[in-house]
């Protein structure tokens, strides 16, 4: 069933260009709804197929193994609710004449191309074409972040373009070094750039070259993943971008960058053992946690608050991968739950922004009574992101602590201390927003916007709740084979 893979990658490309060409509001809305549905179905089909057979491929070009399928599910589900939310959000902006119809169709073209580039990067087996696709997502995101054309948005967009470009250039150097060492084993051909070939021959690759390549890839893709100390673009970009874009940046793009790091880690681990990559990743992950936890309390802007929370959670997921063993399972689980919870937090934040037209946290308290959908979204997402049960983030954080205790106890102590700090400060801010004394009234959003955004929030809540209490068996199979990919010779839990 290779068509599901082709469908998944091509739907947003087609929908994006057709949206730009038709330039009619109703047509674009219908098209985007179709895209949301198609992406959801295609992602589920790809995942189902990978669970059943271990891998899907369309020609030699698009290949999806368990790690790709895991990312397909994340980007597919969140991308689909994100599209619905964007239809509601941008429709409201259009109704209020904040954007013209032309800009409206441009937005959806860029938004869809952005999703398409990410899906291509995930489902490609060639390490260099993955780089090209990730660069494509960077470029489309750059235009989306500066979409408002306000001073602050342009500044955030510029910062993002420059930092990401540097990051991605360093990642390309890492890619070239991989090719440099692999072509001696595999010959001068595209074969020397395929993940599966690299995994098989990793033991024969030059270890020093692979180590240097990994450092370049970690710094390069780490810039895109928003790991401290390369995170400085992240809060600005998340705050200034139109909110549907903030949600996609946080839930999808950061996850994609982690995915790229994981691919390099898998090759490097096979070549020089997991000690080397583990140490580097754990160090950067703890630094990210420390940076984000300390910045929660001083945030006055609710979108920046959630942006810092993204730095924290990407750090936690990477910590899991760095520890290895049980941590691999926890890291992958963490990525999915974070994507669902964080996109929902931004959906709530977007509704609040539409109502108040500012991002000051102090003035948007007591949301639950005044704006039930936004209030519930922010409250549930906030509780989940703080790491409280019954959500999956609780499970993964506990597993990471457990994994760290057995492997490196000193990491567990630092991790727990930072986690406690982040828990308290984030929860304080979120509870203030959701439950505090009612703030100002603002202007209510239109009926159509309410329908679309509520649907998006609804799907996310259901998905988050469904996987919160237990791991569904299909996902369990995928996770088990991801764990096997990183823990060589160790059976999955």
């Amino acid at each position: 069933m290779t068509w599901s893979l082709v469908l998944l990658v091509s739907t947003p490309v087609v929908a994006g260009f057709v949206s730009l060409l038709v330039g009619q509001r109703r047509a674009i809305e219908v098209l985007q709804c179709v895209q949301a549905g198609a992406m959801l179905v295609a992602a589920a089909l790809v995942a189902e197929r990978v669970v059943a057979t271990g891998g899907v491929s369309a020609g030699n070009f698009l290949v999806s193994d368990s790690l790709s399928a895991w990312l397909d599910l994340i980007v597919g589900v969140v991308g689909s609710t994100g599209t619905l939310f964007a239809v509601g959000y941008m429709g409201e902006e259009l109704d209020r004449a904040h954007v013209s119809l032309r800009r409206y169709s441009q937005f959806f073209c860029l938004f869809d191309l952005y999703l398409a580039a990410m899906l291509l990067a995930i489902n490609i087996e060639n390490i260099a074409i993955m780089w090209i696709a990730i660069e494509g997502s960077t470029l489309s995101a750059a235009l989306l972040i500066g979409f408002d054309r306000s001073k602050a948005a342009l500044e955030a967009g510029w910062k993002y373009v420059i930092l990401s470009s540097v990051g991605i250039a360093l990642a390309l150097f890492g890619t070239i070094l991989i090719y440099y060492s692999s072509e001696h084993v595999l010959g001068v051909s595209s074969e020397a750039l395929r993940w599966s070939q690299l995994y098989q021959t990793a033991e024969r690759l030059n270890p020093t070259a692979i180590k240097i390549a990994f450092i370049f890839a970690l710094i390069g893709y780490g810039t895109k993943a928003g790991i401290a100390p390369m995170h400085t673009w992240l809060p600005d970009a998340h705050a200034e971008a139109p909110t549907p874009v903030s949600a996609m940046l946080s839930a999808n793009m950061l996850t994609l960058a982690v995915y790229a790091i994981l691919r390099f880690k898998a090759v490097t681990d096979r070549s020089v053992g997991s000690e080397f990559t583990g140490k580097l990743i754990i160090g950067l992950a703890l630094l990210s946690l420390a940076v984000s936890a300390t910045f929660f309390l001083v945030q006055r802007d609710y979108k920046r608050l959630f942006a810092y929370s993204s730095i924290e959670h990407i750090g936690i997921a990477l910590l899991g991968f760095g520890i290895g063993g049980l941590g691999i399972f926890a890291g992958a689980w963490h990525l999915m739950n974070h994507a669902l919870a964080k996109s929902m937090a931004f959906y709530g934040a977007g509704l609040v922004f539409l109502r108040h037209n500012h991002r000051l946290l102090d003035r948007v308290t007591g949301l639950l009574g005044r704006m039930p959908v936004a209030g519930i979204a922010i409250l549930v997402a906030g509780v989940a992101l703080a790491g409280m049960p019954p959500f999956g983030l609780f499970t993964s954080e506990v597993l990471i602590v457990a994994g760290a205790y057995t492997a490196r106890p000193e990491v567990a102590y630092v991790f727990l201390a930072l986690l406690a700090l982040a828990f308290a400060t984030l929860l304080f801010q979120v509870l203030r927003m959701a439950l505090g004394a009612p703030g100002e009234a603002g202007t209510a959003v239109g009926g159509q916007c309410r329908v679309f955004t509520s649907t998006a929030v609804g799907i996310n809540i259901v998905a988050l709740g469904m996987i919160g209490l237990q791991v569904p068996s299909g996902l369990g199979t995928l996770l088990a084979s991801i764990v096997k990919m990183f823990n060589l010779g160790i059976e999955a839990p």
Partner: protein
Amino acid sequence: MPLFSPHIGSQIVDLGSALLLLTCFAIVAQRRLSACVDLFALQSVFLALTASLVAFLTGIHHIYIAAALTIIIKVVVIPRILKNVIERLNVSRELMMNVNVPTGLLICGALVILAFFITQPIIPLGFLLTRDSLAIALAIVLIGFFTMIARKKAVTQVIGFLVMENGLFLGATAAAYGMPLIVELGVFFDVLVGALIVGIYSHRLQDAFDSVDTSKLTTLRE
């Protein structure tokens, strides 16, 4: 009998790489923006020549295509875009820098040593013809990176990025006799689109801030 012995071929490739490195230093020392763009174009010419030489000596034909694309995109198209930006924005000189020129040149010298130090263990892996170029390629990447940090004008930051890109291309050609063609086409496409986007951004920055001095971008501070 081949036109050059491998030894002489390798010397000429080294010479080309060294010329690329030399233009890097010239860019760091140059304050006039349009001259920086010209130097970047010159560097790209050297890059295309070095790549063609590698293609000629090794008989790998797709490197010629990459070299031709370098001429079209990096020598003709991108410099025109940048000159256009400079003219429209009416910025000609960079008077304030984060790091002054002599210090900058010293730092670049240190970066070259660092690049040789990092690549030392893996140089013997490479092909005889081009293996010394890998260290130079890394040095160019690092100097491009440094230029982006040291300069304040949007245009010079872009040139820094493009210099990094040239270093990467030299690295790919030197280390691996070029990446597979589809990869190189994709990279060129991304660079071109990236330059266009940066052009769009600097226009808008000019409109919004009346300046392309990125040190004036200080609204977003923690």
